[in-house]
């Protein structure tokens, strides 16, 4: 009640402040007049009565002030006054205000952008219902060095039927195939799922239904679910599509549902269609890890409990399903397979955590430097107002009020900086997202959310407190502001604030050193990566595109015809002017399209039950190496005849050959095979190593096979899905793709080309995360350096201006100009050297923290650790040279008369 009426009265007074003011005036006036009336009754004339009444009433303004305070709008009054005062003070020096606001805006903006990355990628839960229950189920085998094998159908069936910890499990796999809608063929991305996969993610269709267990059974009518964008694009969002039929890979399929717009499958690019996996339990063997899996934990079950559960089921699956043809039952036993479920969010995020935390730390350091700089500027300004404070103290102002003045000024600056910073962040966000688009997961989730705004407001508030506390602590002490006559240069006070400012500059230099060392390490990493010979040359002049001849066009029974068609297309494209060579492979370096399997080497161990280490496979047409610029170190390339005749030949990489033989030439004529029931295949060539996984990763041990082979894993093997590589100066242009399309159509008019791009694009993508980190850190380092220079210059220049008189005296007494400059430079050098020393020591630790981002250099990289301090010293020298030079130009006569 009491609090309520108090609040009400306060609100009322605030809302009707001018009216209250008016009423108070009227009330006092009434009192004085009533008193005067009474006095007049005792015979005093009116004029005299009014005068006496006023005297008896006492100081009207003082009474009013006390009333205001009693009534609780004193606080508001002060607030408005302070804000007005701060605004007026800032308007008087726009240069100062602009510099401070921009400094803070850049720092707040950078922090907001990076925090929204951290928030969107790392902090925000996945946008599915109860995301904490979602896990990804993977398998690994330490024995053969497989990290992420995915899941095998046999395991999927056993896990799904017998687990006790999961609500459900679903498998998925990405694919590309040809779809014909209303007569137009198109090559599209598709997602294969089992019937549990979509319900696990809690999605419900906007139209129709999802897959049932029946749809997912082998032999069922083919059904498809459309994604929202594809439905919009190809069907004009018609609701009549449900029940209609399209042609998928040459066979009819019924559209049964459409997914909502907001649904994205994990972090993948949206596919066009979703198809049921239709794994056949009756034909399943143990092995062939050909999908990935997600699952939803039962409520209250931990990932660890699920792991134990799956570990129990893995041997059950091995007993339930037979091994594939040509593989011994003990083959998989010896792989020591293990299920490795992890939280789905961790699976989606991958290893980007380090980069983002490092970037956030770097921008927070930038904010620190910015605050130090602004605090410095503010301290100098506050010292300039020393005289004003002295007067205010003399007439009884409280330190609290003077501190409030400074706080309001800094608050106003910080708010302005924060708002502009937020605007900058909105703009910069697009650039950063574009920069990180190819290598940062969950890019769709990155935006400015309420929590990002809260973060921006918090750092703005902290910044305004930080920048105000140094001047408040150092320059408002009333005991030090005593001498009105001094005009603002009381010796003790000046020195104390000067000390604080020097400390701030040292902090700035130290933080700049840390940021510059990190940037330097990233630059060195980038250089080291550029220096790696990737195993191909001039990737920007290699045009690649996907091509797939479906079995509806050429059946599996005549695989040679597929190779004939491939060869015909290669010859056609080679005839295009400006094209120097053309070939075909299963996958390109850096395209992430891996295939790994163990390989046996003749007369080596690994026979019997032991599993040899796995190798990366690629399947190639003749000319692949020469087109990419990969050198053959020994032997020969494949020929078309090798394919038609199914000659048992193989090419291996240098690292494979080195494992068994001393020189590449020694490998020629030796024999290998994939499974022990296959015939041996002769090594006819050894290629140089190619960095298939990215330049910073070791190049895998490769085995290259022809496109068409007999008795490979017990079957005839034909590589239908292929990537064409075309070496041409015109790579990446539409005109080249048009010519290629024309040539391909002349051989096969009904198969569309897919995913065209240059190897150069893949190459820069593989370096994208390093480039991204590099750019972001260099921006942070650059800002810090710039602010550092301004800080050093500011402190030196100010101290020179304060000591003008002293310099004049020194020169009048015979000091040389050079020694005066030297004195000033020495002062600057001292600050910088201490800052650098502190920064270097801190960097020793920081460099260890970012070591996972580095490649090809040690964290304590001597080049970086020498270059950065030298650079900073040089820059600091320049920053203090100007004031030093000015000091030496001081005219002793002018200086002595100064002020």
């Amino acid at each position, binding site marked *: 009640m*009491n609090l*309520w009426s108090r609040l009400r009265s306060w609100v009322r007074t605030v809302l009707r402040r001018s009216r209250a003011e008016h009423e108070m005036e009227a009330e006092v006036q009434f009192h004085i007049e009533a*008193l005067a009336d009474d006095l007049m009754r005792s015979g005093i004339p009116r004029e005299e009565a009014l005068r006496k009444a006023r005297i008896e009433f006492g100081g009207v303004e003082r009474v009013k002030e006390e*009333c205001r305070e009693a009534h609780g709008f004193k606080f508001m009054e002060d607030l408005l006054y302070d804000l007005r005062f701060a605004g007026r003070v800032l308007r008087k020096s726009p240069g100062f205000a602009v510099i401070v606001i921009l400094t803070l805006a850049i720092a707040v903006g950078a922090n907001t952008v990076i925090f929204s990355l951290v928030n969107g990628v790392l902090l925000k839960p996945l946008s599915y219902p109860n995301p904490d229950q979602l896990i990804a189920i993977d398998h690994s085998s330490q024995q053969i060095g497989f990290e992420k094998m995915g899941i095998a159908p046999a395991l999927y069936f056993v896990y799904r039927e017998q687990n006790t910890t999961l609500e459900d499990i679903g498998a998925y796999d990405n694919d590309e195939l040809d779809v014909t809608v209303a007569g137009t063929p198109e090559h599209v991305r598709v997602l294969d799922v089992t019937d549990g996969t979509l319900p696990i993610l809690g999605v419900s269709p906007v139209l129709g239904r999802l897959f049932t267990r029946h749809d997912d059974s082998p032999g069922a009518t083919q059904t498809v679910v459309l994604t929202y964008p594809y439905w919009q694009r190809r069907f004009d969002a018609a609701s009549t599509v449900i029940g209609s039929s399209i042609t998928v890979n040459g066979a009819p399929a019924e559209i049964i549902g459409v997914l909502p717009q907001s649904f994205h499958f994990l972090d993948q690019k949206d596919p066009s269609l979703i198809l049921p996996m239709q794994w056949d339990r009756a034909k399943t063997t143990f092995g062939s890890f050909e999908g990935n899996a997600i699952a939803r934990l039962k409520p209250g079950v931990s990932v660890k409990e699920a792991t134990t559960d799956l570990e129990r089921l893995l041997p059950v699956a091995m007993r339930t399903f037979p091994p594939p043809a040509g593989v011994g039952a003990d083959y998989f036993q010896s792989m020591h397979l293990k299920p490795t479920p992890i939280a789905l969010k961790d699976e989606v995020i991958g290893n980007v955590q380090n980069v983002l935390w490092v970037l956030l730390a770097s921008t927070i350091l930038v904010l620190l430097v910015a605050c130090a700089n602004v605090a410095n500027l503010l301290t100098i300004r506050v010292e300039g107002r020393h005289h004003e404070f002295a007067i205010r103290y003399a007439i009884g102002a409280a330190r609290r009020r003077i501190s409030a003045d400074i706080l309001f000024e800094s608050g106003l600056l910080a708010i302005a900086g924060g708002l502009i910073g937020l605007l900058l962040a909105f703009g910069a966000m697009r650039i950063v997202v574009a920069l990180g688009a190819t290598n940062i997961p969950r890019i769709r989730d990155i935006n400015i959310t309420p929590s990002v705004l809260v973060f921006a407001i918090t750092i703005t508030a902290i910044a305004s407190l930080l920048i105000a506390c140094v001047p408040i602590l150092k320059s408002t002490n009333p005991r030090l502001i005593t001498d009105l006559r001094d005009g603002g240069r009381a010796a003790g006070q000046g020195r104390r604030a000067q000390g604080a400012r020097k400390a701030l500059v040292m902090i700035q230099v130290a933080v700049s050193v840390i940021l510059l060392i990190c940037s330097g390490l990233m630059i060195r990493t980038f250089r080291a990566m550029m220096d790696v010979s990737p195993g191909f040359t001039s990737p920007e002049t290699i045009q690649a595109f996907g091509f797939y001849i479906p079995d509806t066009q050429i059946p599996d029974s005549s695989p040679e015809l597929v190779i004939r068609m491939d060869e015909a297309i290669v010859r056609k494209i080679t005839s295009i002017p400006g094209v120097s060579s053309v070939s075909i492979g299963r996958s390109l370096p850096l395209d992430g399209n891996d295939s790994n399997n163990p390989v046996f080497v003749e007369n080596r161990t690994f026979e019997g039950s032991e599993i040899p280490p796995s190798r990366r496979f690629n399947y190639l047409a003749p000319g692949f190496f020469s087109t990419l610029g990969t050198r053959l170190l020994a032997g020969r390339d494949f020929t078309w005849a090798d394919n038609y005749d199914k000659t048992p030949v193989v090419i291996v990489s240098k690292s494979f050959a080195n494992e068994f033989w001393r020189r590449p030439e020694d490998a020629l004529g030796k024999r290998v095979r994939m499974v022990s029931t296959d015939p041996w295949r002769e090594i006819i060539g050894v290629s140089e190593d190619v960095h298939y996984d990215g330049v910073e990763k070791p190049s895998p041990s490769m085995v290259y096979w022809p496109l068409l082979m007999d008795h490979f894993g017990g079957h005839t093997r034909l590589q239908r899905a292929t990537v064409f590589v075309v070496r041409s100066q015109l790579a990446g242009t539409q005109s080249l793709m048009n010519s290629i399309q024309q040539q391909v159509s002349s051989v096969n008019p009904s198969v569309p080309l897919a995913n065209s791009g240059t190897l150069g694009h893949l190459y820069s993508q593989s370096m994208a995360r390093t480039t991204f980190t590099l750019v972001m850190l260099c921006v942070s380092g650059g800002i810090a350096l710039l602010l550092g220079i301004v800080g050093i210059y500011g402190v030196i220049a100010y101290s020179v201006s304060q000591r003008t008189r002293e310099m004049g005296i020194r020169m009048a007494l015979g000091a040389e100009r050079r020694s005066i400059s030297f004195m000033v430079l020495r002062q600057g050098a001292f600050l910088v050297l201490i800052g650098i020393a502190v920064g270097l020591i801190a960097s020793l630790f920081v460099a260890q923290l970012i070591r996972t981002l580095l490649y090809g250099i040690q964290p304590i990289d001597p080049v970086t650790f020498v270059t950065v301090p030298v650079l900073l010293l040089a820059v600091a020298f320049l920053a203090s040279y100007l004031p030093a030079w000015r000091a030496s130009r001081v005219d002793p006569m002018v200086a002595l008369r100064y002020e």
Partner: protein
Amino acid sequence: LDKDKQLDLLQGTLDMLILKAVSLGPFHGYGILLRIQQISKDRLEIQQGSLYPALYRLEHQGWITSEWGESENKRKAKYYRLTAAGKRRLQAETENWNHMADVIAAILRTKPEEV
């Protein structure tokens, strides 16, 4: 008025006196002052202006409330009234005061032999 016989107001008692005066009926500020002086038979010295901060404080605390009305000589004046909370407050203050006065008086009456 004979200023020499007037007493200075005891610290903190003005609020209580205002509450008492207002409890007798609605008055404007000047009226409250006159009423207090009248009841005290001019034995209390109250600085005219010091009344208003006290009135604003009491109103802010919700013990009195005010509205504008017309005075006996047809001027607009602000009239103060006691609220229910003010009534309770006045009662509490009065009891407190009487109790305190008794205690103090008893102490002051004490003779040396009684200790």
